[in-house]
């Protein structure tokens, strides 16, 4: 019985593999709040489809629902990859609506925003375990990367054996320290960029094709 099950699983894996290349890969853009995930998602979507994914903001948890841009075709060095970009809410272990009050928000709006944010983070975590084929992990290169959320998220991604590209964003800002991110996660390649200014996007696209193609 076990042998038959194993044989069936093996056949299933082979047939899945035969057709897998035609399917767009679902690439989740993950990272802590305010790392520039939506700015990056919009940059990629605009460069290759002409459309944006969602609004960008300096207020944490602007993205409170995962947003998907499907069938983004990226061509690099004669190689074409088709991906579905999934822009996810910033992952955190805590959400306090009072933090939103500092951004000129009424209490009702702040409570609603925090509720949506928690639902979005829960959904993003679920997707990470069940529904993505690869991860672009975005970090703000002006902040300390040695946080518990980053450590846990990278550990979760590694435990899923997902291909992961680490991007050190916001290199246009004073205080950007790409090396600090490279030192924090030496087991991964770190690519610097400014999603806002479009700096170094050529290398980002080359790496996307390499990692997820």
């Amino acid at each position, binding site marked *: 019985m076990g042998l038959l099950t194993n044989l069936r699983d093996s056949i299933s894996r082979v047939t899945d593999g035969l057709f897998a290349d035609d399917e767009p890969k679902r690439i989740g853009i993950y990272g802590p709040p305010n790392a520039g995930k939506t700015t990056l998602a919009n940059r990629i979507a605009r460069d290759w489809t002409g459309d944006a994914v969602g609004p960008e903001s300096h207020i944490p948890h602007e993205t409170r629902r995962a947003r998907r841009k499907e069938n983004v075709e990226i061509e690099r060095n004669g190689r074409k990859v088709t991906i579905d970009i999934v822009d996810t809410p910033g992952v955190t272990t805590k959400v306090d609506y009072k933090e939103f009050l500092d951004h000129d928000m009424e209490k009702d709006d702040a409570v609603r925003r925090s509720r949506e944010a*928690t639902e979005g983070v829960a959904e993003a975590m679920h997707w990470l375990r069940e529904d993505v084929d690869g991860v672009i992990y975005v970090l703000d290169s002006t902040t300390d990367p040695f946080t518990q959320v980053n450590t846990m998220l990278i550990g979760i991604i590694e435990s899923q054996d997902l291909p992961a590209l680490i991007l050190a964003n916001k290199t246009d800002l004073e205080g950007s320290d790409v090396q600090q991110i490279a030192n924090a996660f030496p087991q991964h390649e770190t690519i610097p960029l400014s999603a806002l200014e479009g700096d170094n996007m050529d290398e980002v696209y080359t790496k996307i094709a390499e990692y997820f193609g």
Partner: protein
Amino acid sequence: MPGPEANVDAADDPDDSGDGVRIDMISGARMEGLTSMEKIRLILDGVREGNIVILEEGLSPDEESKLIEVTMTEISPDDFTGIEIETYPKAEAGNQSFLDKLMGRESTQKLTVIGPANRIETLHKDENLISTLVSRK
């Protein structure tokens, strides 16, 4: 090998901490027989009562992911704002045996401190030291 249990029955006791801060130190042996959701429930029930939970052996990455997910579903305004969690950075893979690597077994043994987000603040963290400030209720 799991160490001796320390104050493992504290979670079953009525809250008699007064103005103090209660710390539940949960041994690896206590966690060993529990399912992922039972572990998460044990942690979150303690944290929601305002306790600091220290796990001798930590959680697996999959359990950490579920802990974040369940925590998010339980956050509510003016009641529970989430958790603060700290572990030492992951040990290098070089510490694993060849057989563990071959079998895909990953050691999750890492001391983990979890507390209510509104009561615990990390002051300093490196590979050898976690320093936290815990405020009273």
